[in-house]
Each structure stands twice: as structure tokens, then as C-alpha cells.
């Protein structure tokens, strides 16, 4: 990716993050409306153990790593 493309992606991500942060009034969710969100399955990582198994498999079989975590490695499989 060229430098201008990188700057474009970075700007888009920054704007997305700001939009996520600000949101809009109509999208705000009041505390008494969080019944569904309180469920364990409503998580970005509802099953950490199975996801960790997946991370290990793909880390050992592909050239990429990363995602919504940090500190990967600790294995001589790649």
C-alpha cells in the first residue's frame, strides 16, 4: 500500500473511531435497555478458549497474526 493510501486508510479509521465514539443521540442505549447486551454471547469474544485454539492453529499455518489482541507468539510453530 502506498503512503497516500495508508494516510487515507488512517484518516478513514480515525473518522470511523470518532463516529463510533460520538454516535448520535438516537443510537444511544439507555442502561435499562441493555438486557440483551448483558448476555455472555453478546461479546466480541464470547468463547475465549475456542478462539485461543483457533489463533494457535492459524498462527502456525499462515503468515499473518494479530486481531483484537496483543502479545502473540510463544510458540516455535511459526
Amino acid at each position, binding site marked *: 500500500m502506498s503512503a497516500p493510501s495508508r494516510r487515507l486508510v488512517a484518516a478513514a479509521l480515525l473518522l470511523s473511531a470518532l463516529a463510533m465514539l460520538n454516535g448520535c443521540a438516537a443510537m444511544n442505549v439507555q442502561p435499562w435497555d441493555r438486557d440483551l447486551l448483558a448476555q455472555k454471547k453478546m461479546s466480541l469474544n464470547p468463547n475465549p478458549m475456542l478462539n485461543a485454539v483457533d489463533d494457535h492453529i492459524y498462527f502456525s499455518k499462515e503468515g499473518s497474526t494479530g486481531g483484537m489482541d*496483543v502479545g502473540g507468539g510463544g510458540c516455535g510453530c511459526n
Partner: protein
Amino acid sequence: MRMQLTSPPTSPPALPADPPPRPSSIRRKLSAAACILIASGLPAAARAGAGATTQLDTSLLLYGEQARAKVTEPVVRITRLYSSGQRLSAQLALDVISGASPSGALPSGVISTEVQTRTTPSGNVETIPPPAPDQIPTTTFKDTRVAFDADWTRPLGRFTTTLGGHVSHEKDYQSLGGNAKLSIDVMHRLATITIGGGYNHDQVDPVGGTPVGLTDGSTLLTSDPSKKEVSSALVGISRVLTRRWLVGVAATRAWERGYLTEPYKVLSLLDPTSGLTVGQLTEKRPSTRVRGDIQASSVYHLSRDVLYTSYRYYRDDWSLKSHTIDTKYRHELGGQAYLEPHLRYYTQSAADFYHTALIQGEAIPDYATADYRVGHLQTGTVGATLGFHLFGSPGEWSLRGEYVGQFGESHPNDVTGVQQDFNLFHPLNIATFVAAYSVGF
């Protein structure tokens, strides 16, 4: 050691003095409030068992590649929950690995009747039958990896800190690392900003010593372990968009330095005309690597079911780029059981020093590898998880079966002669099965 970006806490902040009128019914509000008090007032791990102060998670992975590697991996994790909201976890994992993987060399291209012997990375001497002219050479291995992880999470108002560490041991690889993470809830806990960092200090100690790169392997670079250091950083945000929708974006960056070469991998030297292999060289990779990626994730609650989707873009300074799309659909079966189909697609471009082989007589590059894992590659995954509670017993069971297929360049254009006629990348078929059990007590 992985440190996950957390979802925003869903526990309610102090209610506003004069909340705006809502269209929902009184009954719905009371029901929701009851759910919140029961579910979100506790740390996440406690939700599996109301009132539990200890959580036990176990899993067993059975992994098998067609005619290649096999792995059995049991994992046990125990989490202690404290009334202050603090959480202390410890995990022990064991990997029993055996089988074979491609050495990086190409088929000889000649019919041989000679029975050969070779020494495996495990130190064993084995007899191998004469290979077919188009057979991809493999290296056998056998190892056991033991890994111990621990982490401590401490909430303090809007802030949550997590400290973690790990140590792992294999016959030829050791790793010691730690990480720290800080999460801040903002916007009445509708969003969570997370920053974190980690550091790994690894040692690579190949059986028989570390060979000099891009040589015939007879000369050792060192007989001592070689260092590999990894520093990583994460910044992310997760955001509740609606009553049913949670999204997150996270970017990570990792800096690797030290011995990053695969000590057992080689490249073939090809005759420029016939394409027959005339020798092989050990591979050599740069001693630094800077990785970066960004991932966007979404969790959406339909009427009963939940849809999970994510996309990740990755690139590094080895010119390897990848795209990953992952989706799961959790379908509620009733009675606390669910079925969750899973699809994943991954595609990557090759590192700039990836070569299928080197050609005799041409200049040897500064760095070269024929490891297919940094070449052009696609991976497809299809599978499903069944989650259920056994009648009359506590805890939740999960059974998952998946097929993983890997597809590369079967007829690359950087080979010569007879190699152009061979299929140099047979699809790799992998089957995985995981059984997991979680219980609070």
C-alpha cells in the same frame, strides 16, 4: 499469550435523575432491569454460574492434517473471582505434536530406487523409501510443548487493568513474555477504549545447532540458542450502537527482532534447463519484522440468534499482506443449547523474499525462503459448534468440528524444466475437533 480487547461493560451507570420517557412498557423495563442486575453486575466469567467464585474451563483439541502433522492439545484454565471484581486466572496447556511438514524442497524429478536414511529434528534416524519423481519432500518431527499462562484483572471505577504473563517450553523453542492492558469506559459505558502492550523474549535452539543461512547447512551459525524478541502494542475501541448491536475496531502493531528464520526449512537449487534438483540451501529471513493489522468486528442480536462478523487487514514489512473474513451464526435451539456454524476465508500475498526454488547459476539473494506459509496462500474454514447443558448437571459443554483447507500455487512460474509439469502444492486438508467444558462453582 493473547490479550483480548474487552467488550464494553454492560453494567448500568448511575441512572439519570430525570430519564427521558421511553416507548417501552413498564413490564419490559422491569424485566430488563432484572436481567441487568443478575447478569451484568458480575464479572463476565461469573455469568456461566450465578454466584460462582471459581470458574473452570477445559478443552481438548484433536488436530489432524491429511498425511502430515497431528496435534493433541488439552488445556485447563481456572479463574478465581473476588468480590471486589478482581479476577485471577491460570492456564496450563500441553501440545503433543507429531508428523511431517514440507521441508521447502521440491521434488527431485528423477526416478530413484535408493532407500535413504535421515535424521529427524527429534534426533531419530529413520529409513525412507525412494520418493516418486514428483513427491514433495517432507521433514518429520515429534515434540511436546508445555505452556503456562496467568493473568490478573482489576477493575477500578471506569478503569480496568490487566496484567499477564506466560512461559512455554519446547525441545527447541522457549518463550517468556508479559503484557499489560488498560481499558477505560466512556460515554456512560457505551464505549470502551483499550490500550495495551506486550513483550516476548524467546529462544530458538534447533536440534543439531543453528545452520548458516543460504548454505548447504554443514556450517553452524551457532550451537547456542538464538534470541527472538517481540514487542507489541494494541489500541482499540468497542462501542454499543443499539440495544442489539456491538461493534469494535482494534489495531495492533508488533516489532520482531532476532533469529526469525525457520532453521529446518530449505530451498531447492534447480538446474536452469531440466528443472532437476541439483542441491539445496538452508533458508534465511531478515532479522527484523514489523507487523501491523486492523480488525473490525460486529456482534448483532437478532430476535433470538446472534450474528458475529469480523474483517482483518494485515501487512508487514516483508511485503506480506492478508485479508481475513470470519463469520459465525449462533442459532438458539432452546433449552440452553445452540448450534453455531462458522465460515472463514483468508488470503495472503507472498513475502518479497519467497521463492519456490533458486536456480543454479543465478545470484543468491540476501534472503530467501520456500516456506509455503509466507507464499501465496488461501485458507478456507467451514465448521460448526454445538453448545449444550447436560440435563441435571452444572456447566456448559461445547463440541466443535471443522474442516480447514489450504490452497497455494500448484504451478508457480519461478521454476524450470520438469518442475513446471508437477503439482507443487497439493491442497492441504485439515480436520479439527474440540471438546470444551466450563463450569462455575
